[in-house]
């Protein structure tokens, strides 16, 4: 086995992977937070129909219930 070549290859591969990842991370932090391409949303986000109560309104109703 050619140990020097394998060691060198591993280190170079590590940096080759690290650099684009860091550049993407730096770019993302500079441009601000972007929503992920694929992700899980809540049920409300998935089935929201205009006119449905927002979460803020729901809280207000809950407050009224408490007062009762």
């Amino acid at each position, binding site marked *: 086995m050619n*140990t*020097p*070549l394998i*060691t*060198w290859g591993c*280190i*170079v591969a*590590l*940096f080759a992977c*690290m*650099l684009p990842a*860091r550049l993407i991370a730096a770019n993302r932090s500079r441009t601000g937070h972007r929503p992920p391409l694929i992700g899980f949303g809540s049920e409300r986000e998935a089935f929201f129909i205009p006119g449905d109560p927002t979460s803020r309104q729901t809280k207000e109703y809950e407050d009224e219930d408490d007062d009762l």
Partner: protein
Amino acid sequence: MKTTTSDSARPSAGELSLFLSQYSARLLGAGATCIRLEKNAARIAKAYGKEAEISIMPRHVHLSVWAPGSTDTAASIAAIGHTAISFRINTKLSELSWEIADGKVDFATAAKRFDRIVRDDRRDPRTVLFLVALANASFCRLFGGDFIAMTTVCLATAAGYHLKLLLLGRGVDIRLTVLVCAFASAVLGATDTLFSIGETPSVASGTSVLYLVPGIPFLNSFSDLLYRHYLCAFSRFVDALVLTCSLSIGLCAGMLLMNIRMF
């Protein structure tokens, strides 16, 4: 002309002791020599009509402040923070001591200025990375390396320093960081030997890790030694020695795996 602060603006020994202990801890953390700290602290205390004695321990500063001819005395201890060496903070804090001594700022303003100086330690990691890589390549040239060796060293240093910033940013121990970075730089620095390129591959291997040598702590320790601050000198020397040991372990491991005989 030397002026001192008016009686109304003078802090009590307790207030001054607290301020000076924070000031001293930060100044030492920024890499100032013990003699610099003694001079600056004595200058500030004198401006407020007080006297100060400092005992500098490896990890703490013990300060005693008193007003001559009165019972107004105070003592305080502050821990020396593990911060990066910053000559900018060193310079700004020395300037502040002279402004206090010359009566240009009152105590409240001085305390605010101190907070601002300590907080405002801007670093631009990308510029530093670029400069360090260039510096190590120049170092390679000073040791007789050719242009190919310089390029290899420049890339090995940039990669190693990048890794150093990444690991330190994640809170990894400095000794482990130095070891890992030395290993990575040594392996990359051995590129010329591995592929038989350039005329001076051994120079590239030898100089690729020199950016990790703790030069300022070594210089500070010997400077403290000359001014008879033996404890501080010894602690700084051992700190620097431990980092050099980590560097050597990383380098030797890299050389061993790359099958290079350096010694």
